[in-house]
């Protein structure tokens, strides 16, 4: 038997199932990153030797600013792809979603150069608690980016057939991916000032 409200909205809640599901998932993600940000605050408060200040000054702010712009743009293209799908413009949809994937790739490449530069200077997670939390937070964030890229790639290539067979369901799915992607973007918006600028 079909499970109700898989595609269409339930009237009294105004949602289809997966939309509530993704919001709940994001709530748990907020708690995950919230826990790590709290750890950051806790460690920084107990940091008597000033490793947080000196550590932050070794980070590459221009590169991170560039990456911030890249991620924000990817969020814009993400929502454009959903809008295009809603308007039935499938070609535009593919272009926008493809651009999102590309921008995510750019973010990772920049991050790769940032990481290797640190390693060349002999900076590793064990160097200080600042770099420990820096690598943990940015590493976990990158895992989220990679996870998002896998899903976006799936809807771009192997999973795109559903666009024609079950178009409403497919549009819903893109909306869900978009919500997740905006969240990952938002995490970076917090990470950037907290790690690089403070």
């Amino acid at each position, binding site marked *: *038997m*079909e*499970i*109700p*409200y898989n595609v269409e909205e*339930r009237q009294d*809640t105004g*949602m289809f*199932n*997966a939309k*509530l*599901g993704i919001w*709940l*998932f994001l*709530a*748990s*993600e907020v*708690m*995950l*990153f*919230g*826990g*790590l940000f*709290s*750890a950051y605050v*806790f*460690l920084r408060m*107990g*940091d008597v*030797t000033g*490793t947080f200040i000196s550590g932050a000054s070794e980070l590459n702010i221009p590169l991170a600013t560039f990456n911030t712009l890249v991620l924000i743009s990817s969020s814009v293209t993400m929502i454009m792809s959903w809008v295009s799908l809603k308007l039935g413009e499938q070609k535009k949809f593919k272009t926008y979603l493809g651009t999102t994937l590309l921008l995510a790739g750019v973010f990772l490449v920049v991050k790769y150069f940032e990481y290797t530069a640190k390693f060349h200077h002999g900076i*590793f*997670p*064990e*160097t*200080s*608690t600042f770099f*420990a*939390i820096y690598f*943990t937070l940015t590493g*976990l964030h990158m895992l989220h980016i990679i996870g998002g890229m896998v899903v976006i790639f799936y809807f771009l290539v192997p999973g795109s057939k559903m666009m024609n067979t079950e178009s409403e369901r497919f549009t819903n799915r893109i909306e869900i991916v978009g919500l997740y992607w905006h969240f990952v973007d938002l995490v970076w918006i917090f990470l950037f000032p907290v790690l690089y600028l403070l």
Partner: protein
Amino acid sequence: MSGQPDTHHEESFWRKYIFSIDHKVIGLQYGITALIFLFFGFCLMMMMRWQLAYPEQPMPWFGWLFGETGVMLPEMYNSLGAMHGTVMIFLGVVPLAVGAFGNYFVPLQIGAPDMAFPKLNMTSYWCYFAGGIVMMVGFFVPGGAANSGWTSYPPLADIATTGQTVWLFGMVLLITSSLLGSINTITTIVQLRAKGLTWMRLPFFVWSQFVTAFLLLLAFPPLEAAGVLQLMDRLLDTSFFLPSGLIVSGEVLNVSGGGSPLLWQHMFWFLAHPEVYVLILPAMGIVAEVLSNNTRKPLWGYKSIVYASSFLGFMSFIVWAHHMFMTGMGSTISAFFQTTTMIISVPSVVILTAMFISLWGASIRYNSAMLFALGFLPMFGIGGLTGLPLGIAASDIHLHDTYYVIGHFHYVVAPGTIFALFAGVYYWFPKMTGKTLNETLGKIHFWLSMIFINGIFMPMFVQGLAGVSRRLWDGGASYAHATDTLWLNEVMSASAWLLGLAQIPFIYNLIKSMKSGEKAESNHWDATTLEWTDAPSPPLPHRNFEVIPEVYRGPYEYSVPGADKDFTPQSEA
């Protein structure tokens, strides 16, 4: 099955029983796995109780597990202690309460054909299973399973043997499993309620699962974060939980330092306190169903119970540091958490009181399920009330980390939650299998369990008040405080082993009844909720109901004046 073309097609063995996406099969998978782990965790404890009662004497029959001498070494004792806690909570009780009962009966009680995300449901079971396997692997790595207590406090846990790393990986899998499960439960309850089933018509069991799912959803991620940090400490030599200048075995540890052991405690208890309510709320939910059904009366104060449990869920997020009064975090913080702890006892008392009042003036049916539910009430009462002195910072100084604490939380979880889970098994077995359990065996099981479980935990209060610390390998034999109360160790251990024997009638009953029990009617207990009134026993695969029911009334309309029978089903117009 009446040959509905949309659902009726033969499934392969693997699809039907192993990788099933039917919430009922998954519920049973959870249930069977969790019962096995529950028994395994119990065995670990029975071995520890030998060492406590007869320190350093070779263990009969099972001595070969500890090498030639047959004597349990302190390291082994620590492993057993840590794994007993972990197995019981994360692999036994929670999966049974939430994974098994929640999964099986939430969709049935709200009139849904399945959970909202069936494939996610299957994934969460297999994450749980994998987590269980990883935990078990810990016993076979060098140095044995995790041995830093179920709380895994650093710095000890940071420098412990490989078993701790395995434990952390196991926890990450278990956390993933419960996150997926909780998303599924909440979405199911919000989205798939049958027509007419408004929030205040939900059976309290569904409410309890709803609140529990929120606790799991929001409290577990910080522990996952903490687990990641501890893994970083162990594998990449970071110092999240290691202070500067830490000396291990006479040498300064070669790490950057600057971390804080207290950080772990905060992150750990931020989960682990809500976890207590994850353990108790589904139990209360089951007891509410059983009580109302067997008193043949509406549950007294249904709305108060619902509001109280929601308030309880909210409050449980801001009491965690009452586990940390002795860490030196400061009296201001202690005062705050002491206050919130006193406040959270209020909704628990509201719920328990409402349940006691529900018994007033009822003509009670004393079947096995009801006996266990009735047993739950005073046992949970003892567990809850003995918690108050621990929640007050001043009296906690004396009681902290003594056997009093062990007695307190075991009263909540063992004769509390586990009795409620037994009640659930006796109550819902006819629905799950279509067969009835033997009542006489059930009553024997109840009375023996009731006597022996108190024999284990009541003396712990005495020992604890006398000042005997927990986690002592020799049970206090080398401890001057303990001399007067040492004889109780043998009483407790004998009770534990007898409690083990008392489970034989239960296990026999389950297997025997499944094979050749009497056939159960679809509404075996004359109940009012949808799983009994509208679904056959067992419910139809993949869709539960012949016709999705509609709901016209509240969940506990028993003995309605003027009605022609003493129960009015929710689906009766």
